[in-house]
């Protein structure tokens, strides 16, 4: 390896050699004049690093058509689909299954005239399937007295049993002790779709915050762009803050779009003030953004970050009450469920949008969200790998 012709490497004090100035031909000389100091002022608003970093992130987002669809279009598609699948329940009749043939003729004529009952023919060998699929809620077998086949674990089934039993007994001559006065009320905001929309908005804030921030950072890390950024005088905290700020800019659209859609398409009532809704959404977005930052602090591949995101988001999808109330879970786990950021966000959004709650009314939820924002942000500042 060592060559006798080469001196040992003592580098300091080496005299500078006079190399002939190389001549580059064939290229026009560009002007490498001394810099003009004016023209671009760093103190101007748009010259600030935080503004430029935020702008850069926003531009990257809006120039990614897929991301834009998932953020803005997807919630509308979901709410439309759910509205079609679960129409208002009040006037939905119960489905009663009867065997075809003469044996069920008297049952058929009794039930047929009753309000709120739909009769479907069910063959005996097909009965179990029809019940399972919810095609019929109850099967009435023509014995004396009649036999009810239904699933008591299903709400619709129990309801169908009560309706059928009432109709048949009255037809058999049961005396009515009295008739109650009925005052049907359409309580605005009590439909499933009304209940669902705030959950959908909360879900959007969670997944957009986490994917939007997590993916962007991991991609920049994979491209060695993070390393390039910290090789410049950029402040690291400003880079991370800019990721959060860029999210905030699109938040109003993200929240308003499904809300306006629900008001126009389903006549959903919005009882809370716009300011309160915005504040709740903002705090929620910041806290999920911070969680996204934390997850992205070390991940080096898209696979790694996707796995982490799913690990964190999936449990909340299930327990935090997006599609069905989190009250369905046992009392023992309720404190944990309510300590989750998505539960806090959705509870707060429902209280504000549907019940018109004030910020003071949802302060405990906001506290939970704030903790979920502050702790992950500062943890990620410590953990974050810029290489």
């Amino acid at each position: 390896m060592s060559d006798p012709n080469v001196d040992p490497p003592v580098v300091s004090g080496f005299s500078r050699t006079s190399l002939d100035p190389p001549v580059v031909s064939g290229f026009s000389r560009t002007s490498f004049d001394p810099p003009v100091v004016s023209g671009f002022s760093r103190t101007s608003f748009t010259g600030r690093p935080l503004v430029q970093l935020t702008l850069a992130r926003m531009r990257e987002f809006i120039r990614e058509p897929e991301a834009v669809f998932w953020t803005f279009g997807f919630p509308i598609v979901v709410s439309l689909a759910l509205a079609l699948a679960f129409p208002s329940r009040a006037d939905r009749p119960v489905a009663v299954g009867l065997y075809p043939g003469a044996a069920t003729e008297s049952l058929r004529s009794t039930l047929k005239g009753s309000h709120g009952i739909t009769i479907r023919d069910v063959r005996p060998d097909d009965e179990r399937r029809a019940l399972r699929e919810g095609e019929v809620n109850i099967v009435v077998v023509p014995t004396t007295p009649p036999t009810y086949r239904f699933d008591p674990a299903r709400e619709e089934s129990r309801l169908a049993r009560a309706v059928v039993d009432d109709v048949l007994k009255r037809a058999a001559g049961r005396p009515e002790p009295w008739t109650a006065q009925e005052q049907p009320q359409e309580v605005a905001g009590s439909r499933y779709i009304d209940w669902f929309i705030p959950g959908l908005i909360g879900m959007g804030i969670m997944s957009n915050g986490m994917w939007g921030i997590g993916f962007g950072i991991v991609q920049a890390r994979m491209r060695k762009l993070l390393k390039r950024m910290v090789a410049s005088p950029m402040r690291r905290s400003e880079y991370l803050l800019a990721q959060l700020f860029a999210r905030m800019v699109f938040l109003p659209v993200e929240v308003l779009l499904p809300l306006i859609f629900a008001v126009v398409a389903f006549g959903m009532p919005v009882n809370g003030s716009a300011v309160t809704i915005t504040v709740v959404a903002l705090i929620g977005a910041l806290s999920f953004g911070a969680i996204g930052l934390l997850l992205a602090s070390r991940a080096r591949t898209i696979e790694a970050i996707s796995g982490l995101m799913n690990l964190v988001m999936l449990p909340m999808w299930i327990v935090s009450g997006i599609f069905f109330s989190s009250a369905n879970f046992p009392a023992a786990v309720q404190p944990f469920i309510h300590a989750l950021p998505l539960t806090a966000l959705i509870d707060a959004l429902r209280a504000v949008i549907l019940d018109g709650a004030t910020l003071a009314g949802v302060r405990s939820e906001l506290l939970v969200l704030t903790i979920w924002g502050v702790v992950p942000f500062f943890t990620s500042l410590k953990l974050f790998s810029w290489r």
Partner: protein
Amino acid sequence: MTGNAVSCAQLRKSYGDVVAVADLTLSVQRGECFGLLGPNGAGKTTTIEILEGLLRPDAGEVEVLGLRWADDGPELRQRLGIQLQETQLADKLTVEETLRLFRSFYTRGRTIEELLKIVELESKRTSRVGRLSGGQKQRLSLACALAGDPDLLFLDEPTTGLDPQSRRQLWMLLEQFRSRGGTILMTTHYMDEAEYLCDRVAVVDQGRIIAHGAPKELIARLGQPKVTTHHGTLEDVFMALTGRHLRDE
């Protein structure tokens, strides 16, 4: 040591059992172009990243522009221009937006117009970075490094993967930077590049400097090439020093 743009002494850095840099000492004078040569895995990138303040050495002293990373990091960053190996700038941003972003980090420096003009990307100002050619991307990356009008440029393999035209154009830009008194510390695999651009070079292998000097001196010291089909070049020196066997990595 203060007269030098860069000086480091007894630098050492290892990753587990692998010693990347072993007792490396060098100095770069103000106004010169200094080249770090060496085969893959020789420790060039580790060395330059230590000097750039991106890696902390296990041992050794580093002084850049008379300042130290531990005490004057932020000030030092303002005065350096850095081009890393393999950085991919954001594809979705335009050339101008990218420059504006990097320019915003520096308290002083060049205007966007000047930068575009220097690297001859005025016509690409509104193009997305993802649509630029390799040479254009490399010039944009250089423009980002020049945004703060630096006193010292660190370049890690600035022309790797470029076509001859783009390489020549980049050389010319670096020449111009030098002619204004700028200092350059670069790594390269191309001996013709080192011969053309560098006042002095150091050949690094296995984390040590095994030879250093002006390219012409090194060539002269090697003597006549053993196969006399051509005049001696820096490449002959390099091969004589680092051997002809293929390197992994």
